[in-house]
């Protein structure tokens, strides 16, 4: 009965989404206030029924209802409660329902928090969100209903993929989806602007906090995924340029470009059509990511269930949503003109370079991801594009981007004036080069070209972000939250660059076999293998190794890497033993029992790797602070000088 109620709630949510789309869009174009208000009610109703549906799905998992096909496929009777709940989004059907629920949540938040917006604009935004929701809920109901029954019911379930039985991966998809779906808000703002043919830039102000919020979630989601891959896959890598990872990274890059472009549009009224296009593209890439993951067009290690019928449905949806928005853009954008100009070294110009480089990076990743498909289509054979391509292709735009960031942050609007900071920044650059040379020479013992470049870029950026906070320390209360958010996020990028440089240039990996009592030495650390023992978990058995690490005879730590064998079968899972610190990680993963007490294992020394995730978290925190800036909460009229003109124009309509 419970699953049927869930199914029913999902159908009601779909109907309400259609209501929301109709009343939102038609109400606004007819100027019917009652309809526009009805759209807002529909948003709330849709959200409630989505929550009910999602809650009932989770309930089916908690209750071990193996008569539901999806539950039987992704959980079993030994699965602990926490993972039974997270199993609700551990497979295809549940992920989609979660996608829909999050879209409903964002919609309701927009409806509740956007009081300063004119009603017609707001209801168009909600109408567009309603259309997106209709598409997604139809996709869920028609091709991937999580409430389908299994007749006869299974005695026990298949189990959640053991790879997904992990805390970081339990919350990685929700954060990722929150981010993906969150870009739908900026998308809806852009569409509403295009539908209305608005020439002003108010939408940019309204869209900024929403975009930041979505970007923040996406950043955390990607970071969690990367962290998980590091300690769970047992290879010690943090990024694999896997098509599914790329699918999440492309909207992130585009979203980063959007955040910056929105700033220019809002502050200076420039890049109007460009920003609209970015807002559309950003969500389009999120949908494209969904398509790539769910259709099986690209083969990937993230082997989720794939199905051509689903692929065709998403492709149709993609065409309707993105094609529709781009058609609107083609129609309306030519009317948008930027009145103001700017000089070559103004902040606008730096932000333009930022956009160009971020789009270049996105494009290179998109090409790399879809390259096998292009080659296949032109019958040029099949090839695989791997990390070597991405590693190089990504660095080409990124190094200049980070260099420009160090300067661009201090540039003033409109005019070429870095101001009094010019000499200071040059001095800091020289200091960064020297510091990079010293660090590579004396800390890591090898002056490596990319190592020096990487450290220089990172040090310069970190120093550059600190300049203004230090200079204006006394008056920090007067500085807006937006400034602190920006500074923190850029500082985070500095740490990120530091981490990537450390790992890529100076990591040491060794695959060896060790018998009990044998020792291997890595970068001055002695790893002594003390043997293994059996450990029992709730739904797995594990072999746990003990590796004692000492340095110059002094104990550093004891690592206990595991190999887990889940009761449901499948490949053994690696739980690496990691000693983490900001300076370096020591990593041991158990390989294979070679007999006679000997084990093959992977021992790694990963300098600065924590900074990658710490940097990413600071970026997210920066976005949070910037989104909380007070001026986004003020009524529009108070802060926009052009408001009088706009209102007069609206009055004349």
């Amino acid at each position, binding site marked *: 009965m419970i699953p049927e109620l869930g199914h029913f709630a999902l159908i009601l949510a779909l109907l309400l989404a259609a209501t929301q789309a109709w009343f939102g869009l038609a109400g606004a174009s007819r100027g019917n206030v009652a309809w526009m208000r009805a759209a807002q009610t529909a948003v709330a109703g849709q959200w409630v029924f989505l929550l009910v549906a999602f809650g009932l799905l989770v309930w089916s998992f908690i209750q071990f209802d193996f008569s539901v096909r999806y539950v039987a496929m992704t959980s079993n009777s030994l699965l602990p409660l926490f993972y039974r709940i997270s199993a609700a989004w551990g497979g295809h059907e549940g992920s989609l329902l979660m996608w829909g629920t999050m879209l409903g949540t964002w919609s309701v938040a927009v409806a509740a928090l956007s009081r300063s917006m004119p009603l017609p604009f707001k209801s168009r935004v909600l109408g567009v969100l309603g259309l997106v929701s209709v598409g997604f809920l139809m996709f869920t109901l028609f091709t991937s209903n999580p409430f389908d029954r299994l007749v006869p019911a299974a005695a026990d379930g298949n189990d959640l993929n053991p790879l997904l039985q992990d805390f970081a991966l339990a919350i990685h998809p929700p954060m990722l989806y929150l981010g993906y779906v969150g870009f739908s808000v900026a998308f809806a703002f852009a569409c509403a602007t295009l539908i209305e043919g608005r020439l002003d830039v108010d939408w940019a102000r309204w869209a900024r906090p929403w975009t930041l919020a979505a970007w923040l979630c996406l950043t955390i989601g990607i970071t969690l995924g990367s962290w998980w891959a590091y300690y769970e896959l047992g290879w010690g890598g943090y990024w694999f340029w896997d098509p599914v990872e790329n699918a999440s990274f492309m909207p992130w890059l585009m979203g980063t470009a959007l955040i910056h472009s929105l700033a220019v549009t809002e502050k200076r009224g420039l890049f109007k059509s460009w920003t609209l*296009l970015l807002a559309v593209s950003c969500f389009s890439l999120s949908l494209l990511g969904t398509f790539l993951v769910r259709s099986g067009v690209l083969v990937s290690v993230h*082997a989720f269930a794939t199905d051509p019928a689903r692929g065709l449905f998403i492709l149709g949806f993609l065409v309707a949503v993105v*094609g529709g928005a*781009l058609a609107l*853009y083609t129609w309306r954008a030519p009317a948008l003109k930027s009145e103001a100009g700017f000089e070559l070294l103004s902040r606008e110009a730096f932000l333009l370079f930022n956009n160009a480089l971020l789009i270049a990076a996105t494009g290179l990743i998109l090409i790399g991801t879809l390259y096998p*498909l292009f080659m*296949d289509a032109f019958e040029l054979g099949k090839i695989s594009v791997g990390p070597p391509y991405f590693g190089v292709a990504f660095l080409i735009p990124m190094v200049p981007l980070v260099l420009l960031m160090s300067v661009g942050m201090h540039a003033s609007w409109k005019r070429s004036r870095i101001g009094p900071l010019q000499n200071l920044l040059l001095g800091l650059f020289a200091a960064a080069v020297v510091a990079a040379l010293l660090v590579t020479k004396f800390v890591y013992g090898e002056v490596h070209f990319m190592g020096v470049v990487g450290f220089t870029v990172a040090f310069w950026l970190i120093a550059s972000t600190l300049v203004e906070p230090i200079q204006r320390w006394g008056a920090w209360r007067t500085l807006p939250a937006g400034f602190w958010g920006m500074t923190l996020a850029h500082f985070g990028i500095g740490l990120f660059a530091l981490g990537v440089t450390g790992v890529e240039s100076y990591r040491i990996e060794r695959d060896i076999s060790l018998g009990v009592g044998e020792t291997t030495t890595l970068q001055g650390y002695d790893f002594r293998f003390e043997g293994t023992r059996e450990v029992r978990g709730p739904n797995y058995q594990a072999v746990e190794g003990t590796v004692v690490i000492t340095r110059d005879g002094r104990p550093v730590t004891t690592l206990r890497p595991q190999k887990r064998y889940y009761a449901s079968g499948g490949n*053994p899972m690696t739980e690496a033993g990691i000693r983490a610190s900001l300076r370096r990680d020591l990593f041991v993963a158990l390989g294979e029992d070679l007999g006679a007490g000997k084990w093959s294992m992977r021992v790694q020394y990963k300098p600065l790797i924590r900074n990658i995730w710490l940097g990413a978290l600071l970026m997210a925190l920066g976005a949070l602070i910037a989104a909380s800036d007070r001026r986004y909460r003020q009524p529009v009229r108070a802060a926009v000088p052009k408001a009088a003109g706009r209102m007069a124009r609206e009055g004349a309509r």
Partner: protein
Amino acid sequence: MKRNLRFLIPAALFAALVGFLFFGLYNDPREIPSPLIGKPAPSFSLESLANPSRRVGTTDYQGRPYVVNVWGTWCPECRREHEVLLSIARTRAVPIVGLNWKDDRALAQRWLKELGDPYDAVAFDPEGQAAIDWGVYGAPETFLVSADGTIVHKLIGPMTWSIWQEEFLPLINSPGGRS
């Protein structure tokens, strides 16, 4: 008017992208015959999975038909076909050469220990060099190479007993296969 044409660029790019995606959807890699069929099998010589100091290569099998099976422990379909491969190996019709693709040596060794080893020898290809030469799109893939070193058949996706009997065995038993 010309000025406005540039606003069409995004829509045009998107249309092209959709075209490719549509193509990707309908041209299931499983249905495309490999361009390598009828051509000489690309040679490889890689470390043996079991023993890094030994090498496994195409030259070991010159003059007799053999099967190359691309697999990895990360591939769920490979697990599904493993039973079939074991049964095929028991018939001793042809040697099966494993190409362990983009995998972890330790994981792969454990896999064979646990599930049984149908392979005459397994080449270890963590970087996927040989797999690129062989046009491997995903795992599992299975190639049949005739005695004269020509690829005569390719299967994308898991092997089943009926595919083996209907598609592979006739080719092996045909004069061309044995020649």
